[in-house]
Each structure stands twice: as structure tokens, then as C-alpha cells.
């Protein structure tokens, strides 16, 4: 099948954004939400995730490799667009632009977040409630995390909509419109979960 690498790359990018990266995002936000139940509740949940057997393989194959591919190919996609939302101000064209902006913001956020937590853990730091409490006590970091989390959730929710179109799941204008509403609901719901968890550390 020579000559259709682009097709494969693009579809793989679309798929990985939802499975496994999107699923991991939901799981991560849900585990974070244990913070609303107090320090002990969060540490117990985080500890459970931390002590999953074969954790390093789960991390590599479910998180890091798919995320790395999605991020690098996504950057290429983002920078091959010639955005024209100021000239063609249609709703979907704005979503197209915001999808690219949030993609880049999310990449910056996640890179920093991985450095601050997972990489520090590899250096011997303990990833627990007090670590997050410490990070988020800085008002600049708090704002950065809120923007980062909202941006990530937006990118995922709107990406779900594009996923449905790119794979040919939603074809009719009506199904695409209803999917827009559904993805807005997902955005609001996940943002609630994410932001509530952040403020549990403050």
C-alpha cells in the first residue's frame, strides 16, 4: 500500500486522540477528583494508580507513545493550516482555529505538568496531595493549571466531534449538530470535574 502514508498517519492521529489518550484524560480527571474528599482520599487513589502492576508499560503504551505521536503529528497539522476565521467567521471555522490553539497550549501545559510531576517522581519525589497543594499555592501556577486543564478538555471534546466526522460516524448535518451539543455537554461536565479537583488542592 505505497503512497497512502498520509492517510494512515492522519487516521492514526485521530484514533489515538480518543483511544487511548482521551480515555486516559477522563481517568486522570476522575482520579484527581478524589482530592475533593480530602488528602487521604486522594493519596489512596493516586497510590492505587501508582502501584498498578506493569505500571511502566501501561505508561509507555497507553500514555507516552500515543501522546507523543498525537502531539508531534498534531503540531504538523496545526502549522499547515492557514487560518482564516477573521474572514470566514463561521462557528465551525472558529472551532477549527481554537482546536489548533488549544492543541499547542495543551502540549505546553502537559510538557510542564509531566516535568513537574512524573519526571520529578522518577527523581525520587513523592507525587501526592501535598505536592499538588504546594504547586497550586503559587497563584501563577494555579492560573496556568486552570488554563491548561480547560484547554485540554476543550481539545478533547471538540476533537471527539472531529473524530466522529473523520471516521464517517456522523454524516448528516443533523447528526453533526447533535454531536456538537453532546461535545459541549462533555466539555462542561469534564471542566466541572477538572476545576473542582484543582480547587480541592487550594
Amino acid at each position, binding site marked *: 500500500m505505497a503512497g*497512502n502514508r498520509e492517510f494512515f498517519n492522519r*487516521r492514526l492521529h485521530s484514533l489515538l486522540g480518543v483511544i487511548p489518550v482521551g480515555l486516559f484524560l477522563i481517568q486522570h480527571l476522575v482520579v484527581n477528583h478524589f482530592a475533593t474528599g480530602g488528602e487521604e482520599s486522594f493519596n489512596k487513589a493516586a497510590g492505587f494508580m501508582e502501584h498498578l502492576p506493569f505500571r511502566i508499560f501501561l505508561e509507555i503504551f497507553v500514555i507516552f507513545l500515543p501522546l507523543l505521536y498525537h502531539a508531534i503529528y498534531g503540531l504538523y497539522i496545526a502549522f*499547515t493550516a492557514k487560518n482564516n476565521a477573521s474572514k470566514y467567521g*463561521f462557528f465551525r*471555522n472558529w472551532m477549527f482555529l481554537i482546536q489548533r490553539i488549544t492543541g499547542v497550549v495543551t502540549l505546553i501545559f502537559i510538557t510542564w505538568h509531566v516535568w513537574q510531576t512524573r519526571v520529578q517522581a522518577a527523581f525520587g519525589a513523592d507525587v501526592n496531595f501535598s505536592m499538588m497543594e504546594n504547586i497550586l499555592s503559587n497563584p501563577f501556577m494555579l492560573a496556568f493549571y486552570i488554563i491548561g486543564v480547560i484547554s485540554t478538555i476543550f481539545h478533547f471534546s471538540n476533537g471527539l466531534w472531529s473524530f466522529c466526522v473523520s471516521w464517517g460516524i456522523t454524516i448528516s*448535518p443533523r447528526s453533526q449538530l447533535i454531536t456538537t451539543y453532546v461535545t459541549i455537554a462533555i466539555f462542561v461536565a469534564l471542566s466541572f470535574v477538572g476545576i473542582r479537583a484543582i480547587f480541592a488542592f487550594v
Partner: protein
Amino acid sequence: MMSDKKTVRFIITRQDNPNSDPYQEEFELEYRPNMNVISALMAIQRNPVDVKGNKIAPVSWDMNCLEEVCGACSMVINGKPRQSCTALVDQLEQPIRLEPMRTFPVVRDLQVDRSRMFDSLKKVKAWIPIDGTYDLGPGPRMPEPKRQWAYELSKCMTCGVCLEACPNVNSKSDFIGPAAFNQVRLFNAHPTGAMNKAERLNAFMEDGGMQGCGNSQNCVQSCPKGIPITTSIAAVNRDATFQSFKNFFGSDQI
């Protein structure tokens, strides 16, 4: 008779040859009732004088049918790509700004070269092969409701407006553009055309084909013929999904 003559102002982006820099010229024309952009351009052609009274080279543009079915006279009018034959001066804000559709190579002034669109029709085999070494017979019939449905898709006149509006059709990307999706869907829907469905899809899935779509959906908003382009895009995406699964997992690739 009214004393003051009503006039129409135009600002036209011009370019002397494909490699020279664009520049703008301003024109003031006598208003006539029911003027459209083409009749204004014709007036400039008859009397090529700009607003300052300088004699200039007449503005060149493409046109053919003058009834919005050929697609030749597309240009960017007040920021929107559309056909100049149906752009009525009475409905446009003045000064009326005319620019070429820069997504395509500019030949001269408002004239662009839309060859890439015709090349893409060849790439996706947007035709129905009926020639053989013997009489192939009448072929399967198309149900009337389906014919009426397909007629809407067949209204595409390769005018280039959807490519001009698309953020992903540009010099950095090799995306084929929205119009081709609709052609693949149209010819795959035809009972005889469907016999070459896999061939068409496989050609479309090759590099420089369908994969550059980013779902900005400007195409469907901008199409002068109201073609459901994004529906065609999603429908062809589904067909391509199945085709790629067949190619990889299946035994019957046709």
C-alpha cells in the same frame, strides 16, 4: 433627468503577470440600473481609465456562461469568494473590492489558473467508464429518487470557491480540497460508477488526496450552489474507513 450622476467605485487588485507583485487601482464608473460586477468590468474594458484619469491597461478576468453554472468568473468580492456574474452592484457595499482567488496561481489581474481542480478530477477518476472493446449493454438503471438526490451533487461547477475558503488548501499542504469529495461521492453513487468504487477510493486515499480535511466546514458555507459538501466529506470518510479495513484485513478489496 437627475442632475448628479450616480457612480460606482471599485478597488481592484491587479497583477501584470504570474510572477509580478500585485497592486491596487481604483475606478469610478457611471451607475446603470441592474449592474453586476461583470458589466462593470466590461465598462472598464471599454474605457480603461482609473479614478485619477490615467489611461491604464484594461483589467482582465475570466467569464463564460454569465449565469452561475460554469464557475469561470469566480473572484473575491468584498472579501468573499463568489461568481462575479451573480454579484449585483446594488447589493454590494462600496467601494467594491475585487481580488483574485489567491489559493490558485494568478495568471493576470482577476484571472486565476484552476488547473489543480481539473487535475484532481483526473486523480479521483471522476467519470464513469463505459468504453469497452464490445457493446457493454445498457447498464443498471438509477432509481429516480436517487437521480434527483445525485443531481444536487452534480451541480458542482469546479468554481474554486470552496478551495479558496478552506484553511487547509494552501501552499504548505497538499490537501486536494473539498470539491473532490463531492465528486467521489457522486460517481460512487451512480450504479455504473459504483463498479469502480474501490478504485476511486484508493486513488483518493493516496498522498495529496482526502486526508488534509480539518473540518472547518467553510466549504459548505461558501458553496454558491448549496452543495452539501461536508455531508459528502463525512460520507466519503466512512467509505474510506471501510475501504482501508478491507485493504488491510479483508480478502475482497474490490
